[in-house]
C-alpha cells in the first residue's frame, strides 16, 4: 500500500465519523424499541433513561400474545402476502412473456395502455373499488387485499419487469424449441420461466414486501380485528394502548424482527427488490 497523506487520512476518518453518526440515528429507533419492549412499565418514565433494562421483563411479549390475537395478525399478513406474490409472479410472467416474445396483434397498444395506468394514484380507484367490493360482499374479507394488487398497479409493474427480462433472453433457444414442436405454453413454462429466476426473485421480494407493509387498503377494507394485518392492527393498537409503550414496542419488535433477520441473510436481493419500489411509484 502506498503512503497516504495526513489530509487523506483525515478525510477517511471524517468519512467514517459521518457514516457512524447517520447509522446510529437509523439504529436508535430499533434499539429503543427493543429496550422498551423489555422494560417494566414503571421503568419507562425513569430518568435518566435505561438503555439496558433491569430487570428484563419478557411478560411484555407474553401479555401482548395473550391479550390480542397477534398470531392471527401474523398469519393474515403472511398468507395474504404469499398469495399476492404467487399470483403476481405467475400472471405477470405469463403476460410479460407474451409482450416480449409473441407477436400478436395489438401487442404494443395493449402494453402501452397498461403502462400508462401505473401513474394513477391508488386513492382515485379505491373509492369505486370500495363500492364494487361492497356490492360483491367482499368488504371485511381478504379478497380485495389479494386480488387488487395482483391485477392492479403492482401486477402491471410486474409485467413490465418480466417483459424487460424476457426481451434480454436470446431468441435462438425458443426457435429451436419451436422447431421441435413445443407449444407456447411449454416454452414459457419449461424454458423461459426457469431462466427468469433472477427476475422472479427480485419481483418476489418486491411484491411480498409491498403487500406485507400495505396499510391503506387493509384500513379501507377490513373492520374485524381477527381479519387485520400487522400494520393495521399495530396502528389501532396505538390508539388503544395509549401510553402502554412497553406493549406497543414488544408488538413492534415481533412484527419487525423476522423480516429483518431474513434481510440480513439475503441483503443483495432485498436491496435490488426494494429499489424497484422506487421505480414503480
Amino acid at each position, binding site marked *: 500500500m502506498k503512503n497516504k497523506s495526513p489530509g487523506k487520512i483525515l478525510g*477517511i476518518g471524517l468519512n*467514517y465519523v*459521518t*457514516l*457512524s453518526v447517520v*447509522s446510529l*440515528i*437509523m*439504529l*436508535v*429507533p*430499533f434499539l*429503543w424499541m427493543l429496550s422498551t419492549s423489555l422494560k417494566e412499565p414503571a421503568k419507562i*418514565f425513569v*430518568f*435518566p*433513561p435505561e438503555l439496558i433494562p433491569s430487570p428484563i421483563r419478557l411478560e411484555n411479549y407474553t401479555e401482548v400474545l395473550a391479550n390480542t390475537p397477534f398470531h392471527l395478525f401474523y398469519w393474515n399478513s403472511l398468507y395474504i402476502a404469499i398469495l399476492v406474490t404467487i399470483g403476481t409472479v405467475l*400472471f405477470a410472467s*405469463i*403476460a410479460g412473456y407474451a409482450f416480449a416474445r409473441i*407477436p*400478436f396483434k395489438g401487442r404494443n397498444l*395493449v402494453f402501452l*395502455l397498461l403502462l400508462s*395506468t401505473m*401513474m*394513477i*394514484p391508488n*386513492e*382515485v*380507484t*379505491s*373509492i*369505486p*373499488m370500495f363500492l364494487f367490493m361492497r356490492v360483491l360482499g367482499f368488504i371485511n374479507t381478504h379478497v380485495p387485499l389479494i*386480488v*387488487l394488487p395482483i*391485477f392492479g*398497479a403492482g*401486477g*402491471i409493474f410486474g409485467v413490465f419487469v418480466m417483459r424487460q427480462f424476457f426481451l434480454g433472453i436470446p431468441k435462438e433457444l425458443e426457435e429451436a424449441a419451436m422447431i421441435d414442436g413445443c407449444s*407456447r*405454453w411449454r416454452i414459457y413454462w419449461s424454458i423461459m420461466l426457469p431462466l427468469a429466476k433472477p427476475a422472479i426473485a427480485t419481483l418476489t421480494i418486491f411484491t411480498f414486501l409491498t403487500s406485507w407493509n400495505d*396499510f391503506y387498503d387493509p*384500513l379501507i377494507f377490513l373492520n374485524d380485528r381477527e381479519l387485520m394485518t*400487522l400494520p*393495521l392492527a399495530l*396502528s389501532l393498537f*396505538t390508539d388503544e394502548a395509549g*401510553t402502554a409503550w412497553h406493549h*406497543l414496542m414488544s408488538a*413492534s419488535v415481533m412484527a419487525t424482527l423476522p423480516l*429483518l433477520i431474513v*434481510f440480513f441473510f439475503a441483503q443483495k436481493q432485498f*436491496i435490488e427488490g*426494494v*429499489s424497484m*419500489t*422506487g*421505480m414503480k411509484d
Partner: protein
Amino acid sequence: MESNMNIPISPEQKKAKPKRNPFHREANVSGWLFVSPMVLGFLVLLLGPLLLAFYMSLTDWPLLGEPTFVGMDNYKAIFSDEEFWTVVGNTFTFAAGLVPLNIALALGLALLLVRKLPGIGIFRTAIFVPVMTSLIVWAIVWKYLFATDTGFINQILQLFGITGPAWLYNPQLAMPVVIVTSVLKNVGLNMVLFIAALQQVPVHLYEAARIDGAGRARQFFQITVPMISPTIFLTTLLTIIGSLKVFGQIYVMTQGGPGDSTKVLVYYIWEKAFKNFEFGYASALAFVLFFIIFVFTLLQWQYRKRWVFHEE
C-alpha cells in the same frame, strides 16, 4: 399481412400461405390468451374504477341511498373549501421539506459510501434497514421517540437541562417532525439508487480531470452531477410523487393534527371518503390529487432536457 389479402396470389405464395397463416393465427390466439388475465384484471379493477370514479366525482354519492348528478358542483365546492387549501398547503410544505432533504442526504451518503473502504458495507446496511421496515412500525417508534414526557429525545434534552417541547402537539413542530421521520425512513432507497449510478461513472473521466488540475468541487459539479443526472431526475420525480401521496405516517403520528396543521391531501381524501362517506366529494378530491401529480410529472419531463446531461 392483411394488405396481402386482395392481391392476386402467385403460386409460390399460395404454397407459403398455409404455412404462414396458422403461425400468425397461433401467435394471435396464444398472445391474447397469455395476456388475458392481466388485461381483464386491468379493465375490471383499474380502467373501470377510474371511469366510475370520474363519474362519481360529478355526483353527490352517499353511503346509502341514490346518488344524484350534480355536474361540476363538487369541483366548484373544492375551490371554495378553506380546509382544502390548508390541506394542499400542508401537502406542499411536506413535499418542499422532504424532497430536498431526502435527495441531498441520499446523494451525500452515496458519495461517502461509494468509496471502497473496509467495513463500509455495514453502514449501507444500517441506513437501508428503515426502508425495509414497515412504515407503520417506523412511525409508531418515532411517535414514541418524540413523546413529550417519556420520549427518548426529550429525555436526552433533559440530560442537558433542556425541557423539550411537546413535539407532536405543537402546530409549528408537528410537520417538521413528520418530515424528518419520513426522510429517515426512505433516504436509504434513494441512496442505493445513487450508489448504483455513481458506480457507473467511468473512472478515466476523473483521472483526466485531475491531470487538468480540476479540484474536488469542480469534479463533482462538472463530472459527477452531469453523469448521474438521469438518476437525480428519476429519484427527484419519484420522491415528489411519493411525498404528495403521504398518508401512513400522518395517520399514525398526528391524525392530521394538532388542529389541521399536518392534514395532507390523501388524509383528507380518506377522511371524506371513509369517515364521512362523501364519496362524490372525495372522488373529486382524488382527481385533484391525480391532476397535481400529473402536472408535476409533466413539468419535470419538460425541464428534463435542460438539466439531464445524457439520455439512454
